[in-house]
């Protein structure tokens, strides 16, 4: 086994990266008032730029495992550094505009890095910063208009979820980057939680009734897709939402059967959990 591919090496690198990140964060947060502007910038933005170049040098020296840790450190600190720079020197204090600028710069940095040096870590951060840019851009744009759109964040996450699943499928076909699992996982969570929220949380009393039906269909689709996509994420996320959905629906028992409703609901929930357990077991076998 190549020294660079040792799992223990990766784990230690990422733990080291996390410790450096928290060290910088705590140093700055504790001493923020005492630090002058240049120290604030060098300790955040400067640290991000340095980590990026160290990562690049290590990558060129074929030390890929440790270079990933430095790229990750850079990606964690870069947004903070940019917020600090814009906080100190930005003329405008428009929060939404600053969010768009920060996420766009981070996206541009990691997208261009990926185009020159295709690596999984860059794809990961392109997806993360791309998602932030998408949300920030829409919030910024809608804030400039005077049309009130309700539930915008639910639709944003719904679209993100669809995009993640499409990207995950593309990556699964391509088989270069091992990111299809996380993309399916977050994609299914985003889609189901958004539709669940649009349908109305808490006993489905306040939402849009069409979305209550769509949520049930989407949960069914999550189970159906888990087999052809060979994704356990779809299966488990679908099972969690199915349990929640049915328990939510079963609270209607208390409205119909009065004080007998709650014991009936418990019995119903028990049977449902057993059925879902068997369903997961059956589909799990099909995936494997």
């Amino acid at each position, binding site marked *: 086994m190549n020294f660079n591919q040792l799992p223990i090496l990766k784990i230690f690198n990422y733990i080291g990266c996390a410790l450096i990140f928290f060290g910088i964060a705590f140093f700055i947060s504790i001493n923020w008032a005492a630090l002058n502007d240049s120290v604030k910038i060098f300790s955040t933005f400067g640290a991000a730029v340095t980590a990026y170049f160290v990562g690049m040098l290590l990558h060129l020296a074929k030390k890929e495992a440790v270079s990933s840790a430095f790229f990750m450190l850079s990606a964690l600190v870069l947004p903070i550094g940019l917020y600090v720079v814009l906080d100190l020197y930005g003329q405008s204090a428009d929060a939404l505009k600053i969010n768009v600028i920060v996420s766009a710069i981070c996206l541009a940095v990691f997208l261009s890095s990926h185009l020159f040096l295709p690596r999984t870590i860059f794809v990961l951060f392109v997806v993360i910063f791309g998602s932030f840019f998408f949300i920030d851009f829409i919030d910024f744009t809608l804030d400039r208009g*005077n049309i009130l759109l309700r539930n915008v964040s639910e639709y944003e996450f719904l679209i993100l979820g669809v995009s993640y699943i499409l990207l995950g499928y593309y990556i699964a076909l391509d088989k270069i980057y091992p990111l299809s699992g996380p993309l399916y996982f977050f994609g299914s969570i985003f889609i189901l939680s958004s539709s669940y929220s649009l349908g109305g949380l808490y006993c489905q009393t306040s939402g849009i009734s069409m979305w209550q039906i769509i949520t049930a269909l989407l949960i069914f689709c999550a189970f159906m897709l888990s087999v052809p996509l060979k994704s356990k994420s779809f299966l488990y996320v679908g099972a969690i939402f199915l349990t929640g959905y049915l328990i939510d629906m079963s609270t209607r028992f208390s409205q119909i059967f009065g004080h007998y409703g709650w014991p009936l609901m418990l019995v119903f929930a028990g049977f449902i959990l057993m059925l879902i357990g068997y369903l997961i077991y059956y589909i799990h076998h099909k995936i494997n």
Partner: protein
Amino acid sequence: MKKNYFLYLAILVPLVMMSAAIISTLFFKKEQHSQYDFAYAVLKQYTKHCDRFLDPILLVAQWDNTCEASFYIYDSKRNTSRLVTHDQIPAHLLISGVSPDGYNIEVCGVTFPEIFWLDDKYYHWNRCLVRGNFQKRMIKLQQDQVSSSPNNFVFLGWIVNASQNVRNAP
């Protein structure tokens, strides 16, 4: 080549929503304003004690001067706020909730990712005029008004019938 369609779709789907947001902002701009002015107060520091006096009846009869608050009348046609004293507010003409022409005042705050050492100048608890799917930002609370709390803004009520008289008051 066929698999690339999924990549293009993954990029295209968010782009469509972003384009829809741009189109809705650029092409569906409309200007509306209520016929009625309204009164509001901005508390320097929110306390339950002071909030209790911001009732139209108690405001005039028993206002506690130890409560630090600024009172304003918002001119709906000119989109401006005018500083007044508490006794200049026509408490007997105020109605709470929705205006007679169907407008409401809602919080439309802008929040900033909470980075724990940045100060709170990015936290705004703006107030918007809302009717149906129309929303217009009207009042942006300033930093010196301790804008980090949504409770510092207290809507007192819409001024019905005598808006001209109040607008022209000294």
